Structures are given as C-alpha cells and as structure tokens.
C-alpha cells in the first residue's frame, strides 16, 4: 500500500477518535486564577475608592523556577478614580502584568506596561461589587472543580440557604461527597450569562444569576453534559462577597440549536 494511502487512513482514524471524544467548544478557564484576579481588583476598588473594569485577561505564563516560580498574566483594564462632587471622570486605559502565586490563587503584585489617558470623560461607573461578586462566582466554581469543601464553606454566611439540583443533596456538606462519588476522570465547568442585580444598596446585597455547562468524562470513558442554572443572594462584607442563598437547578442542555425551534 502506498505511503500516502496508509497516511490518509491513519489521519482518518485519528481524527475520528478525536471527534468522538471532543470536549465541547469552550476555552478551559482556570476558575481559581480568575477569582484571584477579580478579588485583586475588587480589593483595589475598595481601598482606592476607584473602579477597575477588566477588558481582557490573557493566558497565564509560568515563569521562574523553584522558589522563584510564579505565574504572569496580562490584563487590559479601564479605570476611574472617584472624587466627591465630580460629575465627569477621565478614564485610564492600562495594560498590566499581574504576578501571581504558583498556586494561581493569589495576586502578589501588578506592573503597568502600557498607560493611556482617554481623550473623553464619562460618568463614574463603579466596579467594586461586580469585581467582588465575580471573584466569588469563580472561587465557588473553583471549589466545585477541586472538591474543596472548606473553601466552599467559607463563602457561605451563617444560616444561609443551600439548594442543590440533585434531590439527594440536602446540604453543602453532602454536596462535595456527592461530586466525588461521581468519580469523573475529568470535568470542567464553563460559566455564562452572569447577571448581577442590586437588591439593597445600603445593605450591599445582590441577586446573582448565571448558568454553567458542566462537561465530564465518567469512569466508563463516556462524556456527560449538564446545563445548570444558579441563583445566589450575596452580601458584601469586609471586602468579600458572601452567599446567603444558593440555588442550583438543571436546565436542558442545548446540543443542537435546530432542535430548540418550537412549533
């Protein structure tokens, strides 16, 4: 058999195998890293009385070795500094390199690599609550990804309400053992449709909704897919967003847009 024919056969078989086990198109996001970045800027917002709106977060780069090992991430952001009595604010565009601990869970410091003052003014747009809430959502998801029950517990207020999608899970303390019992070989959550609505500005309380697509490979090597809807009630206390209500429900996963057409 000619080499090219053999080559074509191998490629066909390899591609078929790839297609059969393909991960649904979603960029693999490190939720712990995202949480650390949003918490960093949420904290800066609080300390500096400013706003930091993240425009993009780059891919992490591992640099250094041994004790010097850390991760660098480029971020693009737009910031404003709040001043009493001022109605219009100049925006500051910046690109920064964040130096992050090797565990990807804490920003050590930032370094500005590009700065530009906007040539227009705009109204002040606060970002503290949204940054802290995004930090919470990503950190919570990271806790689910890593089966870290104590990390999840730290996000819940005392007397909080927890409702899981699975009827057999009554409390958070049952949730992580349930997730572990699934014995997934790998799994990933892809977040979308995040919406934050202020409930009470004085009490710093918010209603947060989002969805996530949860993809996993089970012990039999089969792909599993779930679409989850999450509703949270959140209060910001001492620079951290905390959960007073968590409710998760199953939605029907969308695998083919055509099948969603209604008659």
């Amino acid at each position, binding site marked *: 058999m*000619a*080499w*090219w*024919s053999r*080559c*074509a*056969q191998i*490629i*066909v078989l390899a*591609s*078929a195998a790839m*297609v*059969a*086990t*393909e991960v*649904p198109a979603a960029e693999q996001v490190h939720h712990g890293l995202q949480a650390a970045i949003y918490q960093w800027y949420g904290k800066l917002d609080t300390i500096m009385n400013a706003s930091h709106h993240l425009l993009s977060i780059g891919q992490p780069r591992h640099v250094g070795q041994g004790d010097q090992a850390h991760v660098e991430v480029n971020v693009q952001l737009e910031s404003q500094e709040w001043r009493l009595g001022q109605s219009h604010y100049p925006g500051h565009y910046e690109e920064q390199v964040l130096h992050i601990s090797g565990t990807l869970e804490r920003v050590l410091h930032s370094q500005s690599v590009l700065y530009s003052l906007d040539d227009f003014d705009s109204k002040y747009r606060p970002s503290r609550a949204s940054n802290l809430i995004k930090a919470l959502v990503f950190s919570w998801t990271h806790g689910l990804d890593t089966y870290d029950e104590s990390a999840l517990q730290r996000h819940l207020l005392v007397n909080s309400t927890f409702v899981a*999608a699975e009827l057999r899970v009554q409390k958070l303390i049952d949730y992580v053992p349930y997730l572990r019992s699934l014995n997934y070989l790998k799994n990933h959550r892809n977040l979308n449709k995040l919406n934050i609505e202020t409930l009470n500005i004085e009490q710093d309380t918010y209603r947060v909704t989002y969805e996530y697509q*949860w*993809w996993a490979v*089970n012990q039999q090597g*089969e*792909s*599993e*897919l*779930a*679409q*989850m809807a999450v509703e949270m009630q959140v209060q910001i206390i001492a620079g951290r967003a905390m959960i007073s209500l968590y409710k998760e429900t*199953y*939605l*029907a*996963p969308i*695998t*083919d847009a*055509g*099948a*969603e*057409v*209604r*008659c």
Partner: protein
Amino acid sequence: MRIRSWVAVIAGLLLSANLWAAMPILKGVGGDFSLQSSLGRQVNLTDFRGKVVLMFFGYTNCADICPTTMAHMSQLMDRLQPADRSRVQVLFVSIDSDNDTATHLNQYLAYFDPSFIGLVDSQDKIDAVAAKYHTEYVKLADSTVTTVYKKLTLAGEATDQQGYLFSHTAKIYVMDISGRVRGYFYMGTPHAEMQSQIEQLLQE
C-alpha cells in the same frame, strides 16, 4: 504522485470531519415513566432497555411539525438495516389529552410506521413526563387561532368547533439502550447523521 497523495490526505481529513461526535449523556433531563399506550396497555420506558428510543411530544391535530417530524422518522427507519431497525423504538407522546385517544393515535402512527407507539394519558401524567424532559407546550385557543384552524381544516369538518393549536417543543429525544437521554434530533437533522448516531448508540 505527490499531488495525489496530498489530495488523499486532505480527502481523509474532510471525510473524518463529517463523522459525528459521540452523543454525551445529558444530565438532569429524562427519566423513567409509565403511560397508557396505543397498544392498549401501560408502557414503561424501561420496557425498551436494549433499544434506542426516539421520543417526540406532539398531537395528532397538529398540522405541520408533528406529521413532518413523524415522516422524517419514518424515512429514517426505512434507511436502517433490519437488525438495527428492530432495536429502535419511536414513541409519540400526545400532549393533547382532551382529544387524542389510544385508538386515534394507533391509526395516526400506522400511517407513518406501524412500529411507532403512541402514548396518551391524563394531563397530569403527561405534564409530569414533560417536566422530566424539560419539554414545553401551551394550548392556544382564541378567535385568531380558530380562524387559522378552520383554514387548515378540510372543508365541511369541524366548522362549528373552536380551533386550537399547541405551541410546543419540537425536538426528538434520543435515548440510549440504557434509557439515558443522549441528545436531540429534529426534523432538520440529516438522515445520515441520525443513522450514524443511532448505529453508534446501538454498538455501546
């Protein structure tokens, strides 16, 4: 010769791109149920273990998507090898408990394929199954609908009746041999894709 070899490699890649990914197991959708059937007896989803089940929620007075979808599935059945065909079961769940009867469903489905089974039961039971499968439907019955209904109805029939339509989910639920929902087809899914997916599921 070199050009021919590259053509073969590219053709191989294009061919492989046409293969469909294995359907994932969908969590939080589906589950067992027990309903009255057009066979004149109670049917459980568990009765079809070992078979791929294609399930559709519709109603026999539907003028468009239900008959089109059933025809699409009938054509699919004709494409399958006899051995595979015997391991595929089409279920039509009626969302119109007020009007559809087991006998009526039997006649309707026989027109498409005598092997298709219709399920009809009390509205509460149908609602419970629909909720498990996240299927949605709502009955529309007003003067506008009646006007359209009468246009669609054969002359002389049902002229005094108030017309009604259901707005409903139009997906075909695909369940594997263990009764797990693996995805959806619809009347626009190419037969070749449906056949390939069913053959993969039957091999599991």
